[in-house]
């Protein structure tokens, strides 16, 4: 029975597939147009399935850390590294634009903070008549849902511009391609996709830069041979994997002993891991690929009566505050949260027919000890899950919109 059934299913699937290859379909995809392997994927995502470290990208981001950024440092969300520009004259329009935004999710504090910033930016642009409306679909961290969301936007035919914050790189590539085929401008930000069809791909320098900044800081502040515990959220997410790939490479080269763990961003887990590590021996340094939960790690040292480590966290407020209160040796790397403003500002530029950088690399500067006080002062009253470099101080809703979530 079972075999018959399985064969039946397979046969049915295959028959359907061949039949469809023959008959023309109204689908938004045709095999030839999905750009199978025709577009050279950006190097950042080539590591799929294996080792995440990519020397070329590492070198590139190493350079970009000290690159000169075009534009006003007062508005870092508009800065970019000089490079190829996309001509947008064809989309120039006086009409307010209807924006369709396919968001991966707002399931962590970083994305929540960014989304608030984005909505405030939207309000400002609606005020100035650039944007008429923004329809948001939230995929709840699911590739399949996000693909359906994008296809829905395309089928609806109601969008003047697409903004996509992909849930994952490779899986969303075909859907982004389909959006590009509509001929409307497509703005991709945060995580990338394996196609360069987008009008602009907005992102901070990248995960390697984070890894380099943090590893160099630990190496500068610790003796070779020190024990470093690395706290990572989860495997398989490229922006996070790149952070660790670069840091691990540099730390190991510098002769550090590193021990990495996945925490699921759960502070309980973090505290247990540190406690176990401390019970096994001394821990001199803590490396994190995201800052929320850093306080639990610090408290684990305090509760065990151990000396506080040299530590890298993130520009999340709880970490900055804990760092400040305890006077630790620490660094707050930044994955520029202000990038959530940039896509809407790009829409404004497109509406004006101004060229936009094809790959829009935003600055990404860690907060060092001497900048900490300023960062704390500028974000007075913000909740713990807020990010210091959110870049929304000049927006109309500041600060209430970020304070009362």
């Amino acid at each position, binding site marked *: 029975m079972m075999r018959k059934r399985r064969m039946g299913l397979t046969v049915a699937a295959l028959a359907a*597939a061949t039949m469809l290859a023959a008959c023309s379909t109204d689908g938004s995809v045709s095999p030839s147009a999905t750009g199978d392997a025709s577009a050279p994927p950006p190097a950042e995502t080539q590591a799929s399935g294996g080792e995440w470290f990519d020397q070329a990208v590492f070198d590139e981001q190493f350079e970009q850390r000290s690159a000169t950024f075009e534009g006003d440092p007062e508005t870092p969300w508009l800065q970019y590294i000089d490079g190829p520009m996309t001509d947008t004259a064809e989309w120039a329009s006086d009409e307010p634009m209807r924006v369709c935004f396919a968001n991966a999710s707002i399931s962590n504090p970083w994305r929540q903070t960014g989304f608030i910033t984005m909505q405030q930016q939207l309000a400002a642009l609606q005020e100035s008549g650039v944007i008429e409306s923004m329809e948001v679909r939230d995929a709840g961290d699911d*590739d399949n849902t996000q693909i359906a969301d994008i296809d829905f936007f395309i089928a609806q035919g109601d969008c003047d511009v697409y903004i996509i914050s992909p849930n994952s790189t490779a*899986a969303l590539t075909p859907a982004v391609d389909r959006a590009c085929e509509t001929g409307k401008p497509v703005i991709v930000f945060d995580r990338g996709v394996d196609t360069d069809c987008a009008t602009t791909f907005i992102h901070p320098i990248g995960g390697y830069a984070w890894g380099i900044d943090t590893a160099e800081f630990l190496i500068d502040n610790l003796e070779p041979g020190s024990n470093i515990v690395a706290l990572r959220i989860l495997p398989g997410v490229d922006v996070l994997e790149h952070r660790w790939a670069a840091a691990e490479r540099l730390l190991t080269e510098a002769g550090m002993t590193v021990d990495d763990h996945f925490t699921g961003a759960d502070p309980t887990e973090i505290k247990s891991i540190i406690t176990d590590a401390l019970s096994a021996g001394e821990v001199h340094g803590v490396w994190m690929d995201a800052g929320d939960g850093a306080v639990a790690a610090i408290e684990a040292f305090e509760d065990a009566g151990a000396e506080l480590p040299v530590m890298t966290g993130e520009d999340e407020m709880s970490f900055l505050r804990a760092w400040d209160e305890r006077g630790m040796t620490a660094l707050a790397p930044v994955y520029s949260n202000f990038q959530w403003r940039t896509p809407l500002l790009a829409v404004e530029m497109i509406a004006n027919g101004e060229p936009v950088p094809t790959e829009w690399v935003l600055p990404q500067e860690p907060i060092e000890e001497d900048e900490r006080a300023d960062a704390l002062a500028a974000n007075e009253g913000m909740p713990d899950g807020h990010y210091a470099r959110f870049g929304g101080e000049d927006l109309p809703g500041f600060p209430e919109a970020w304070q009362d979530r």
Partner: protein
Amino acid sequence: MSAVVGARPVRRRRLSTTAIVFIVLAAVLVLSAVLVTAAGKPFFTAGNLAAVLTLMSILGFVAIGQTLVIIAGSLDLSVPYVVSTASIIGAGVMAQGPAGIVPGVLAALAVSAGIGAVNGLIVTGLRVHGFIATLGVGLIISGWLGTSFQGSFGSAPPEFRVIGATLIAGVPLSTIIMLACAALAALLLHRTRLGHHLYAVGGSASVARLSGVRTKVPVVVAHALCSMLAGLAGLLLLARTSVGSPTIGSQGGYDLMSIAAVVLGGTLLAGGVGSVLGTIGGVAIFAVLDNVMSVLEVNPFLKDFIRGSVIVLAVALYAWRSVQRRPPRFRPGKEAAP
């Protein structure tokens, strides 16, 4: 004997649970259309219907399999990891090009069926409750996935991806395949000996055993079929995303959602009673609900709240109706009929 038979009062046919599922679905559809229209947006557009049907198809595969397992009196929490495994294996084999499609599909389904058989053997042979057995197997697979695959893996050739992106008369091909599987599963349940045995074992394993049914076989087969359907879901996701992904199954939360959809479709969680048609209705209710919330741009967090409430309310509706009662002989009220 005739006296005994004759003494039985007339048994009135009541609305079947499946009928109620579809009445609820219709109500949800109407309500959705009203809400969406009131918000000034179109609901019954081709694009939107395609979106609903696509959302249905993936959960549909998993839920059909879950129906079989639940009818047999077990349950399967390992499905998300089977989905991911199938997508990885399919993508790995298909990376060589169109020639890999058939081997890829076969390999993915074979491995999925193997995982399901293991689930079934642990449940029947080692007598571990399905909840723990499949939770454990899920953990085992997730460890393998997490260790061996960091990020996406392999790729699907365009010829295979067509399955994920084709519409026939406005209906996604994936939905048609899902409905075909549903029909096969319904045939299996109602027209084959194995199907009858599934109901028998789920209704009461000891009674089934005493009736000469080999109680282990149907449970193992149900688990194998469930995993195979999860594997099909994984392949379909592969066709949609073009790459294998070790997390694609957990992203969708298919374990608890499929169980919820099955129960929403009127199948008894305790086993022995249920239908595939009802499950399709349950899946459709979820899909419409999700779609409406997307169209109305409901806060993502509030979506979960609404989902949870609807599950409970709908199931309460069936449960309230299906409290088993013998038909009364006399009018139960204050005054008896003469």
